[in-house]
């Protein structure tokens, strides 16, 4: 059973949402302010955190920033509906996905499931997963442990970044359309003005750096999609 940490200052909402998510087969624990959320998340034992941006005291962004310093726990941000910037900031800080609030709980569950599918679950780790190791140039992806090394140096990345990179790497040398990438890596249809992919790709670029020849590792093909450069 996947364990979910629900961080939102609206007590009534978290109570109902806990019940709802419980009904969908998740074990839910909630935190009502940033400090508590951070403490619980750091303590471990969760598969995913649903994090509200607007919290008094330590905001969702602060929590995410501090969390990412030490943990790759998948995070789904709940952002204010009218603040497009929030989603971009959230993704930049390393959120796996975002959902404007108020949201339909069914959509929330679908997003949670999509992220969890990408994350290395406990069962996967125990079974050793598929032994496949994806190697291209200086980049190695260990599918089982979902670890990535670049030039022998381990690169920490969120499970969403891993999924995006995996799809691009499997199609290295070919252009992957945004719609395709969204469905295969994020597990959902591309919606208009969804900046998620752009943000994930840009953080991948930042983490991996350019190819040894100085060439851009992941190229943007304007109006079409992305392409991992085959060395």
């Amino acid at each position, binding site marked *: 059973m996947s364990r979910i940490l629900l961080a939102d200052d609206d007590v009534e909402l978290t109570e109902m949402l806990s019940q*709802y998510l419980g009904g969908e087969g998740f074990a839910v624990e909630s935190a009502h302010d940033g400090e508590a959320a951070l403490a619980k998340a750091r303590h471990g034992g969760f598969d995913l955190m649903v994090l509200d941006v607007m919290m008094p005291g330590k905001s969702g962004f602060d929590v995410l920033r501090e969390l990412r310093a030490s943990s790759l726990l998948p995070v789904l941000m709940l952002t204010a509906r009218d603040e497009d910037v929030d989603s971009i900031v959230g993704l930049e800080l390393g959120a796996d996905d975002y959902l404007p609030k108020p949201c339909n709980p069914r959509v929330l569950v679908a997003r949670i499931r999509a992220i969890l599918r990408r994350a290395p679950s406990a069962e996967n780790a125990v079974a050793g997963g598929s032994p496949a190791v994806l190697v291209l140039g200086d980049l190695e992806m260990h599918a089982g442990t979902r670890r990535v090394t670049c030039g022998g140096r381990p690169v920490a990345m969120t499970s969403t970044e891993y999924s995006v990179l995996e799809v691009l790497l499997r199609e290295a040398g070919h252009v992957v359309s945004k719609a395709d990438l969204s469905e295969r890596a994020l597990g959902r249809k591309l919606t208009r003005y969804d900046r998620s992919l752009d943000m994930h790709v840009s953080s991948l670029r930042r983490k991996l750096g350019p190819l040894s020849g100085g060439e851009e590792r992941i190229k943007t093909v304007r109006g079409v999609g992305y392409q991992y450069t085959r060395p």
Partner: protein
Amino acid sequence: MHRLFWKIFLSFWVALVLFAAATMFSASQYLEHTRQQEEAAGPRERLQQRVVEAQHIADRAGIEGLKAWLRDIDRRELVPVLLLDRDGQDLLGRAVPTPVTERLAREATRPWHGPFRPRMRALIHLADGQEFRLVPDYQAVTLGRVIARPRVIALPLILAALASGLVCFLLARYLTAPLDRLRRATERYATGDLGTRVAPTLGTRRDEVAELARAFDHMAQRLQELMGSQRQLLSDVSHELRSPLARLQVALGLARQRTDGRAAAEFDRIERETERLNELIGQLLSLARLESGVTVAAREPVDLAELLTNVAGDADFEARATHRRVEIADVAPVTIQGDARLLQSALENIVRNAVRYTAEETAVTLSLEPESGKPDTWRITIHDHGPGVPEAMLPRLFEPFVRVGDARDRASGGYGLGLAIAQRAVRLHGGEVSAHNEPAGGFSIVIRLPATPGTR
């Protein structure tokens, strides 16, 4: 108080006085100089020189030479010289002043004596026996004559003009430089840089312009505060209205879980209405935001053709469910500066509206062309085959919550905010939206957008 007034007053005064003084000084200087010259040589000696010179010319070049010599003196010298024949007529036919005529008459009746004797020698003899008397015409020395000979006072005049010009130039620059700064600050403010202040850039100035700058800063400060508090209010309202909605949605989800599919139709209905309410809150807030906006916040290159194609594609997909279509007629490749998201929502609102009203089995047509006669302006036309709008309603169409023909509107579920939002969004891009009933039937909305939303 009124420091600027005194500055202007005194500067102009000083400049004028300087100029007048310089002119008078140079004129008197010149007259003095001429007089001194006359005195230095002694009028008689100078006259003697002239006579010798004249006689020399008369001997060499005759009467014509004398005429040329006279004209030359007339042009060059301040004091002209007259050459009078026996009848007292000037060789060049110039008017002879009365005092000269009178003196000559006196001399003619009296024998020469004493101090006047040298004048007897002021006679020029020509080869043919003609005699001319040479008389300097001091009466002719007037200010007009001085001014008519620019060579004489050109240099001092130019210097005076340059000096006063410099004073005026410095004054003008001193006056307009801070005004220019104020204008630039106002423009910056209008583009949304609410932190702009002018007074600190004016240093220690303490005049009307500085006061104006301080007044501007005060206004800027006040506006910034007001806009800040309005933004805060909007975000509070948004949060306060949406928190219950968020709870409502989760409660609805719980109810669905617990009733196991019973009352699903009702729950669907509740969900739909909740979404609608959510959307309406969003629209209200974005309208309020647009109304308070000064100009477009985000300016990036927007591919209008791509935007139009995307909107048409999505709207077509939606429209086909109700047996309508959305088609693209002409699309010119155009990129403008603006906020893609705002423009998209403006277009979507208008196209959705058109789809709602166009008759079944007809198409809404979108086109994008350059505005005729106006370079750098683009025209987007959204044409539907609907019943149109009563002419009297056309100007009110872009007001919030306006309804045209109640029954049909309620059936189509319009909120009456879409067009208002669209208009505000287009206006923030420096454009305009207008609505027309087409003579050939149908109804069209025309968006005119400048390529760069300049500050108007």
